[in-house]
């Protein structure tokens, strides 16, 4: 009895939290006092991810960072959840810019050859992040909305086709160049592909066996046994 329902992001939804973590360029319109450490660490993180993270943690907890400010005009990549809260009608602390993959140059590419673009590489949450971006009061907003719909329409047929014909894996493990083309799908598309495949398999099984499929062990039990086996062979 899996809790499977049609696509509806909500407060606890992992996918939605992942999508709202995607970053976009923001420019500070006012001074933000006593947060400067946070800004400097951003630069460090870009240079060296692992060590800077430790520094970021330390300086954040360090009260001496109190006197550091973010000056008006500073540009930073902020996650969507933060940008959204700081950029609203009444009093904008930041102004947002649209990530380049949703800008005109990329839009042209997507319009021309939607079906061959590797969305997964551009942004794993391409549609979800895109639709959030289209909610900003930005000159590109309407265009992004149209783009998402068109792009989805163009690619949907392909996904349907894959769901019914290929048996490649969707785990995304072998995502090298020229390997499984389904690796080019974004998260939403991949979900559709998996649903499509399993219903197609169910239909085929029903057609060939008249629905008399054997009763199987529960999924979790199978996974658990596999792991036990793997552990046993390692130790």
């Amino acid at each position: 009895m899996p809790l499977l329902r049609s696509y509806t992001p909500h407060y606890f939804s992992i996918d939605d939290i992942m999508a709202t973590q995607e970053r976009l360029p923001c420019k500070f319109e006012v001074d933000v006092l006593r947060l400067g450490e946070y800004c400097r660490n951003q630069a460090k993180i870009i240079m060296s991810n692992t060590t800077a993270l430790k520094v970021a943690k330390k300086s954040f907890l360090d009260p001496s960072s109190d006197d550091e400010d973010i000056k008006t005009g500073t540009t930073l990549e902020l996650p969507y959840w933060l940008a959204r809260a700081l950029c609203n009608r009444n009093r904008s602390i930041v102004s947002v810019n649209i990530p380049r993959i949703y800008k005109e140059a990329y839009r042209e590419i997507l319009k021309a050859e939607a079906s061959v673009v590797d969305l997964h590489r551009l942004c794993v949450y391409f549609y979800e992040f895109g639709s959030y971006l289209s909610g900003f009061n930005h000159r590109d907003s309407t265009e992004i909305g149209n783009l998402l719909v068109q792009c989805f329409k163009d690619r949907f047929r392909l996904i349907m086709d894959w769901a019914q014909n290929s048996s490649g894996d969707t785990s995304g493990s072998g995502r090298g160049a020229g390997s499984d083309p389904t690796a080019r799908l974004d998260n939403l598309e991949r979900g559709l592909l998996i649903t499509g495949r399993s219903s197609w398999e169910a239909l085929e099984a029903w057609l060939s066996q008249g629905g008399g499929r054997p009763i199987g062990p529960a999924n979790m039990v199978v996974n658990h046994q596999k792991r036990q086996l793997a552990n046993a062979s390692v130790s």
Partner: protein
Amino acid sequence: MFGDKAFELIKELERCPDSLPAFNDEGVRQVLEEMRVLFEQNQKDVNVSVSGDANYFAGVQLRHTSLERNKRCLLAYLYNRLQYIRQMRWEFGSILPPEIKFNLCEPEVKWFGNYSKYLANYMKTIGDGYGLDLTQDTKPPKSLYIEVRCLVDYGKLELEDGEIVLLKKNSQHLLPRSECEPLIRQGILQHIVH
């Protein structure tokens, strides 16, 4: 950056959707610590703002948003783990394998026990008090008897009509579907189809 540690917890769940990682006590504690610091700093800056300096408003806003984000990630972390644990009640039954139970934190074990309890209470009331086990009959029935192979040395199984069957590893039996379904679900018997 604010909220990163909380996001790590979510990524942990996202990385392995087919298993339940050990409850990340330390991760949760660190997020709560970050929240405490954010809150204290905000208290300070709010006080300054009240005394006339409006320049601190942006920082307060930023930290407040981060607090909310941390809260969302923490609650989502707990929520999605419970979803998984709940599913285990339906697939493993009311007793969890010890290796799995080991990955639960104590309140989660408690929640699992409670869930089992109120689920059982609900199932008892179905049909005017006759009771009905909803974890059974999960597939549309095709035949009364099915052929099964035993995958482990299980021992004796008493059927509803009093007959006793000895389930030895690799032995095959023709048994009433309704009585061996739970054993198939637990991976003890295998349903053979020709």
